[in-house]
């Protein structure tokens, strides 16, 4: 039985929202909760007798902890306890127990497990106090004593240690084997370019600080509000690490203040808060600081080299793309960086490689459009360079090499409306007015340039369950342990259910964010609509069949002989398609059938046999205008048109925001974001919002989003493909290409800071 879980305070659409159809623009159902401050995030759930935990982090990068001087810290009034590896409660000794559902190959860090320090900023102690202020102060008085060992954190200095990645990770596929003879074709070709690219470390920096509130109930049950992209992943992790059965732990995440991949794996505040709750036998809250949010996963620093060659007419004859990225000593974090280059353009000779270098850093973690953000960036700058070598329009070069089938897998695309993206995007932007030569447009003291790029991302589907419960009063509650990290999950799922059942949206509630709900995948990879959305629609379809069965069994039923395709659910009724006046209101149906509620559960499994016959991807064409100051090298992105092919768009308003947000991320990647490491200390230096600049309002100008027609029933029964990542991919390349068009200066590294523009 799936009921509404009261503490989740699940939002429902405003009264009067009415009937909805897929593709409509509907206001976010959680909007009111968010604009009034009523929505509670992980650190905001009240608990009686709450203890506050503040984390102490290592100041060395590698070595061992010899001991702690805790005397001053323990003397701070209000301090309850200080947990270190020496006095922590029991944790499972097996390395395997610490692997969460998205762990890559290798074995994860075990917080406070032993005396080993393996990266700078590693959590080494948790100070617990009656107030946050006392814990924060005492944490500054904890004095660890270390035996320091030499560390290696610089990718450039250790490229000779590059190795093939080990182990599996969801969403990762190693580069395909070589097609044709890429180097020989390159050597023989008349037109060619070679280029090297560097992308620095980036940190996700969702606005909400990572936090866990562990509420210990009288019977010892732990209810944990955690910042995560999957309540079930965090529940699984806590159960395995501490040996607590699923009945003793519930994890909730009804509101998540952004994550962008950082919540794909449980972060260290979760096990620390749990061990404190177990040790103190009381409720505990641990909130990380902004600085501490630079002490777990990041987008890995990556070096890339690309060689492209073409015939004089622009036909690509060789693509070579090599990438080397950093990972930790403990796990082989992998992401798809180069495979896109074997997927986007038709070519007979393609060679791709991807290698890792183990460094004394924390394991990287997926960050919005992992791999593609910088992998497609490099390819799309290289394509721009090739277009100038060919003296060909950059868009014409892409159309010349348009891939009708996946060139390395030789599979057809399930759908691919990229040509429409190019056409509609170019028309909207006015691309045909573009002068070919760089340094052709100037306004005042600024050079003006226009650039474009292609984007692509996977169209993925996983498996999920959903339950649907129709209540006697006509309310429909659909549930799945999904997540809404700001993506619009609450809204889009309620729309799917309301449209499917023909109910006004305000009578439908989609419940998510609790580990006890039917199984859902981690929210990531742009897969939530294709996966959970399909499960929701499947559950509704099953519910329709159950309701028809009830209707058929009514005395003298007008539906007695009706088959499911002869009826429809519309306007809150079940009715005959042929004779819509023959109808019954759904609450009436339940009343006559003597049912207080009707519940169904549905398991959605992807049709893998069908899906494997196709390459499944989203596509985009991004056009942008930049203004570059002649003297200062400052760049403003004044105009962006992003044309997206992502299957059927279900929730137009929230999907639009996803793409706009992705474009903002692309601009921020292009111009601003990099976490810089002092390799003598092995430490990230700019670990705060003042020195790690993310785009602010003044950095963002006009952004226009176009969704082109696409309907993909291979990827999902809804026709949808997912919009979480595609908005970002290609944007930074379009910006870089526009800067070249403006100034004649080619900048292949990100971020494109003014010093690089001046020096180029």
């Amino acid at each position, binding site marked *: 039985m799936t009921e509404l879980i009261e503490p989740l305070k699940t939002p429902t659409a405003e009264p009067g929202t009415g009937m909805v159809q897929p593709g409509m623009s509907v206001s976010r159902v959680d909007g009111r909760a968010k604009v009034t401050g009523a929505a509670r995030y992980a650190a905001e759930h009240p608990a009686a007798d709450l203890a506050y935990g503040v984390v102490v982090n290592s100041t060395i990068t590698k070595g061992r902890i010899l001991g702690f*001087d805790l005397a*001053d810290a323990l003397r701070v009034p209000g301090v309850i306890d200080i947990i270190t590896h020496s006095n922590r409660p029991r944790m499972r000794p097996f390395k395997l127990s610490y692997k969460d559902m998205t762990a890559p190959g290798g074995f994860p860090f075990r917080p406070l497990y032993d005396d080993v320090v393996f990266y700078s900023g590693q959590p080494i102690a948790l100070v617990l106090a009656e107030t*946050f202020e006392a814990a924060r102060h005492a944490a500054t*008085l904890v004095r660890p004593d270390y035996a320091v060992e030499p560390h290696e954190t610089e990718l450039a200095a250790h490229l000779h240690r590059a190795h093939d990645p080990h182990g599996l990770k969801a969403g990762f596929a190693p580069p395909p084997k070589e097609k044709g003879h890429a180097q020989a074709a390159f050597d023989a070709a008349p037109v060619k370019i070679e280029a090297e690219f560097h992308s620095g470390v980036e940190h996700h920096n969702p606005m909400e600080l990572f936090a866990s509130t562990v509420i210990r109930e009288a019977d010892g049950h732990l209810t944990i509000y955690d910042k995560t992209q999957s309540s079930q992943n965090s529940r699984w992790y806590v159960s395995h690490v501490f040996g607590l059965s699923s009945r003793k732990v519930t994890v909730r995440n009804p*509101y998540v203040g952004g994550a962008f991949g950082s919540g794909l794996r449980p972060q260290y505040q979760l096990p620390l808060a749990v061990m404190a709750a177990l040790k103190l036998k009381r409720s505990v809250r641990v909130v990380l*600081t*902004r600085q501490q949010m630079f002490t777990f996963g990041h987008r890995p620093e990556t070096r890339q080299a690309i060689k492209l060659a073409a015939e004089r007419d622009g036909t690509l004859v060789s693509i070579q793309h090599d990438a080397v990225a950093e990972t930790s000593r403990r796990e082989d974090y992998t992401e798809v960086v180069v495979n896109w280059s074997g997927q986007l353009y038709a070519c007979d000779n393609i060679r791709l490689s991807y290698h890792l270098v183990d460094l004394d850093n924390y394991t990287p973690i997926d960050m919005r459009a992992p791999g593609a953000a910088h992998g497609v960036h490099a390819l799309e700058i290289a394509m721009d360079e090739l277009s100038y070598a060919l003296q060909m329009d950059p868009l014409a070069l892409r159309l010349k090499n348009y891939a009708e089938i996946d060139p390395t897998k030789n599979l057809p695309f399930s759908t691919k409306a990229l040509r429409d993206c190019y056409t509609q995007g170019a028309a909207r932007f006015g691309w045909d007015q573009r002068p070919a030569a760089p340094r052709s447009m100037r306004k005042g003291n600024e050079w003006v340039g226009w650039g474009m790029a292609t984007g692509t991302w996977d169209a993925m589907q996983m498996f999920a369950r959903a339950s649907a419960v129709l209540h006697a009063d006509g309310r429909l509650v659909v549930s799945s342990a999904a997540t809404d990290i700001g993506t619009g999950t609450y809204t889009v799922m309620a729309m799917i259910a309301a449209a499917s059942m023909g109910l006004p949206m305000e009578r439908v509630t989609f419940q998510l964010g609790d580990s006890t709900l039917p199984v859902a995948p981690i929210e990531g990879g742009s897969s939530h609509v294709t996966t959970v959305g399909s499960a929701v629609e499947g559950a509704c379809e099953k519910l329709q069949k159950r309701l028809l069965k009830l209707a058929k069994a009514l005395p003298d039923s007008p539906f007695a002989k009706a088959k499911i395709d002869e009826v429809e659910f519309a306007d809150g009724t079940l009715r005959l398609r042929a004779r819509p006046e023959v109808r019954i209101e759904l609450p009436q149906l339940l009343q006559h059938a003597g049912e207080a509620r009707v519940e169904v559960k549905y398991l959605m499994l992807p049709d893998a046999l069908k899906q494997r016959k196709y390459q499944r991807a989203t596509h985009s064409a991004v056009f942008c205008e930049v203004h570059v100051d002649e003297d200062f090298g400052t760049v403003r992105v004044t105009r962006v048109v992003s044309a997206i092919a992502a299957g059927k768009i279900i929730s137009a308003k929230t999907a639009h925001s996803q793409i706009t947000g992705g474009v903002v991320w692309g601009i921020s990647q292009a111009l601003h974001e990099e976490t810089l490491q002092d390799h003598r200390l092995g430490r990230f230096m700019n670990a705060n919002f003042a020195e790690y600049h993310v785009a*602010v309002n003044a950095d963002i100008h006009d952004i226009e989003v176009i969704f082109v027609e696409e309907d993909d029933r291979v990827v999902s029964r809804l026709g949808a493909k997912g919009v979480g990542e595609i908005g970002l991919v290609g944007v930074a390349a379009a910006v870089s290409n526009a800067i070249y068009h403006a100034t004649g200066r080619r900048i292949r590294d990100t971020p494109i800071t003014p010093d690089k523009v001046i020096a180029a």
Partner: protein
Amino acid sequence: MLTENHATATPPSPVTMAAPLYPIELTVNGTRHQFEIETWVTLLDLLRERMLLTGSKKGCDHGQCGACTVLSNGRRINACLALAVSQNGHEITTIEGLADGNQLHPLQQAFIDHDALQCGYCTPGQICSAVGLMREGEAHTTAGVRELMSGNVCRCGAYPQIVQAVSQVMGIAPAAQPEAPVRPTVVGTVLS
């Protein structure tokens, strides 16, 4: 191995003595409250942890992100940078105090209408900041709104919609304005 040193002969240092409490009075969302608090408690932590008014968000605790923006005597301030004792006698308005019962403040409604939010974590700060912005009377164009709303970081990237929402409520026509700063920017100036 722990190496705690309990054998100290010196008296506890001043930093480890119980912090003294000071009486303050705040009017929060129209209701007067009295507190006995330590000087090290920020207005933000007072609101969130002691009054359970968690609508004001902590995003950096260093005045770098604006998520904690509240109105103090009508001016927008970063509640994380304001010690609660320094606000003694002030009228504080938080996001919880903007709506009139079930009737949303026009900015709240405009944020919903324009989808000027995604995860929602920066949203209370954005809205309180916009209320302060309107009172300041400095922004007259969309470019001005962009510039003067730049103390509020939105990592989801809802900036275009935020500008639309704020501009609509302020009666600023969209995109009809020249791309010029509202006034010459002088680094280090603080608006009074």
